[in-house]
């Protein structure tokens, strides 16, 4: 396969970025998208040019590190697939492929295609947990959880925190990410004690980080590599509203 790549290059967050064009030959359709980038980088190094920085780690679609905005879509053309699981058989010989970083105020560019997503960590730190110190727990089977609740909680918990939802959203909203965690814990009996305060704190932190508002367009869920459902956003709104109406905070 022959490809033309237009890749966003940016030295760091303080400098301006631009697209660079690269021609690549000999790409096999069995390669993953990131392996195609490995080939590009090896070629650049051989030409004494600086390789493209991009985030990646597990390359099996679970760590959430990879984050390429490919031809106008986070993680590229396929549904329910992270960049690292995208293979070149999804493209055609002669294609031009445009690759950009996630673009959001709350995700500053570190270099080229690499952005900082520590805003997500801070949102989790604000309330995305059950406050249970090690050793406090009772026997695991002393708390039956209806299978349906456990299954729904699991589906929400499958979020890999990659940030594609933010990148997909025209408002750079983080609602899908935040709602997945709020939902997981709201659905389980273990999460009940802190249910209200969790919703309040996580939403407040989300706003502080500079993520935009949600207008229920659904691009987030459509582009999510784990297909996290919009239901979670509805649930989060309900949780948040309920919490605010009966809030003890002044």
């Amino acid at each position: 396969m022959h490809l033309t790549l237009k890749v966003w290059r940016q030295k760091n967050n303080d400098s301006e970025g631009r697209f660079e064009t690269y021609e690549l030959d000999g790409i096999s359709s069995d390669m993953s998208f990131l392996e195609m980038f490995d080939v590009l980088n090896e070629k650049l190094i051989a030409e004494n040019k600086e390789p493209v920085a991009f985030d990646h780690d597990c390359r099996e679609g679970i760590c959430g590190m990879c984050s390429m905005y490919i031809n106008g879509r986070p993680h590229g053309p396929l549904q329910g697939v992270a960049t690292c699981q995208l293979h070149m058989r999804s493209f055609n010989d002669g294609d031009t492929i445009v690759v950009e970083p996630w673009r959001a105020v709350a995700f500053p560019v570190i270099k080229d295609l690499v952005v900082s997503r520590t805003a997500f960590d801070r949102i989790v730190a604000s309330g995305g947990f059950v406050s249970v110190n090690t050793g406090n727990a009772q026997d695991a089977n002393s708390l039956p959880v209806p299978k349906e609740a456990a299954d729904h909680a699991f589906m929400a918990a499958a979020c890999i925190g990659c940030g594609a939802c933010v990148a997909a959203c025209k408002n750079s909203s983080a609602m899908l990410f935040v709602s997945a965690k709020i939902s997981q814990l709201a659905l389980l009996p273990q999460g009940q004690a802190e249910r209200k305060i969790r919703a309040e704190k996580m939403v407040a932190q989300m706003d502080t980080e500079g993520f935009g508002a949600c207008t229920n367009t659904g691009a987030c869920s459509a582009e999510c590599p784990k297909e996290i459902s919009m239901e979670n956003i509805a649930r989060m709104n309900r949780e948040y509203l309920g919490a605010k109406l009966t809030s003890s905070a002044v």
Partner: protein
Amino acid sequence: MATSSRLNAKIPEGPLQDKWTKYRSSVPLVNPSNKRRLEVIVVGTGLAGASAAATLAELGYKVKAFCFQDSPRRAHSIAAQGGINAAKNYQNDGDSIYRLFYDTVKGGDYRSREANVYRLAEVSGSIIDQCVAQGVPFAREYGGLLSNRSFGGVQVQRTFYAAGQTGQQLLLGAYSALERQVGMGTVQMYTRHEMLDVVVIDGKCQGVIVRNLVTGEIERHAGHAVLLCSGGYGNVFYLSTNAMGCNVTAAWKAHKRGAFFGNPCFTQIHPTCIPVSSEHQSKLTLMSESLRNDGRIWVPKKKDDTRNPSQILEEERDYYLERRYPAFGNLVPRDIASRAAKERCDAGYGVGPSKMAVYLDYSSAIERYGRAEANKNNIHSPTDEQVRALGKAVVKEKYGNLFDMYKQITGEDPYEVPMRIYPAVHYTMGGLWVDYNLMTTVPGLYALGEANFSDHGANRLGASALMQGLADGYFVIPYTIGSYLANEIRTGAIATSHPAFEKTEQEVKDRIEKLLTINGHTSPEQFHRRLGHIMWNKCGMARNEQGLREAIEEIRTLRQEFWQDVRVMGTANEYNPELDKASRVADFLELGELMCLDALDRNESCGGHFREEYQTEEGEALRDDENYMYVSAWEYHNDSQWELHKEDLEYDNIKIAQRSYK
């Protein structure tokens, strides 16, 4: 044989069953006001690191945690699929702490420490309790109680799971506990930071040198104890199921500062991975061992049979694991399943374009589940199509994400055609030598999880890595660290202006400078690939003396070439993944040699270490308990110069036997 005087495992006295309970009740404590003044550094935030950092902070210690990823949630524990073992006996099928202990020691081919493994089995139940309390959504039955499944090398159902994403769910649990402490200000979290050396002052580990990967700044951090939770070194083989960033650097730097390296040659080759498809392949993907619960492994009975698998009749198939190991069938331990696959492929029975693959077939499971579902739903004489549809739905619920992943990578639909699989490097049982307290041979320096050598002997059983990582972090280190830190309360704050910090930092900077100024022709990636090639061919699934001797020479030559010809682009003062990579590859180039040296020393076959010279007539591993029932602990002296220390293994509670799964 006698244990080297340099190795004291500090195993408590008394009967096996009482050791941990008694020790836990008598280990020195640090009072709360002193804990606030003691700093603990945690390197790595996988299951071991995140659980340790969170728990130590809950106890009141001041904790600093470091990870090279952009978030602690991305550590490679996240990718563990199948499950976590615990001796809960919820299935009433005869499980017990002793049985988990026994299975683990036997599974490890009698090369692990009894006391450590027993403790692991003892705390296993508490791990499940803790994770459930955190909101980890384990799979459940309709009655609301936890579900279990089987894993290799075991005849009870003790594996807890969350679809094929158990590692993810457990890590997110530990991560949320960690972030909770970050939010409370008790843990300072440093993401995109890589540890590049440990600082030893007066024989004690008192800090680390790290590089801020975003700015390139070299930083000093002091601590009264340093915990390395930095994972395994499977990436020395280049192709493995590890994440691209997994590396040995933290453990290796510690080794070069005096921490002995235990059993470096014990690596686990996992039997069910997606085969290599092209020379550009950057990593291999595991298909969870849980698939062997229901999948059947086979190759054609005829050599070089290139027919489509659906055209090969039942009687023309060789279900070689069921044939060779009727008692355990497809659920034999990993080392045995891997070698059996290699044996068939080497003999010319392999399938697929490369002929280096075997089939993992779900058709009979789909049929079986389909019939059961039809019965359940009162569908009498269902059509084949109905059976398949019902069966596929059951398989999808159990293994859906794994099947999707297979399809994504290979472009084939595993519901319709059998998966092709082949063994791949997955886990390293070896690691830094630690005593019962998880302390290395450097006082104040600990190793937890896959980074240490302690619990899995020569072969790890499936679903035991998650158990060990969380056991070490949640339930072992919080107690054992007291025995050291209780004596550190008078140390006071450690100044990073100490000459040892200055010297170590300068050495780190010099090395970076050296890497950047060689300006050779070959990328770090190319060196890594070449190293991996040597390791896989000569120190992989089968090893022999001649190959190992050659490998050592080849690695030395390659290392020399690296330091003359590597090309590292970019500068030291910026985000520079090429520099990170070069630095990691340089360490792998040293580790590879030690692994071969260790494999050469061990003139026996055990677990994942298979020396071709030492096998039974049936091709099974032939141990030599007389001469090799020891842990190899290697002390670093200089380039290519190591001294071997031996820790004798004693088995008072288990009768040693040839491992049989027939």
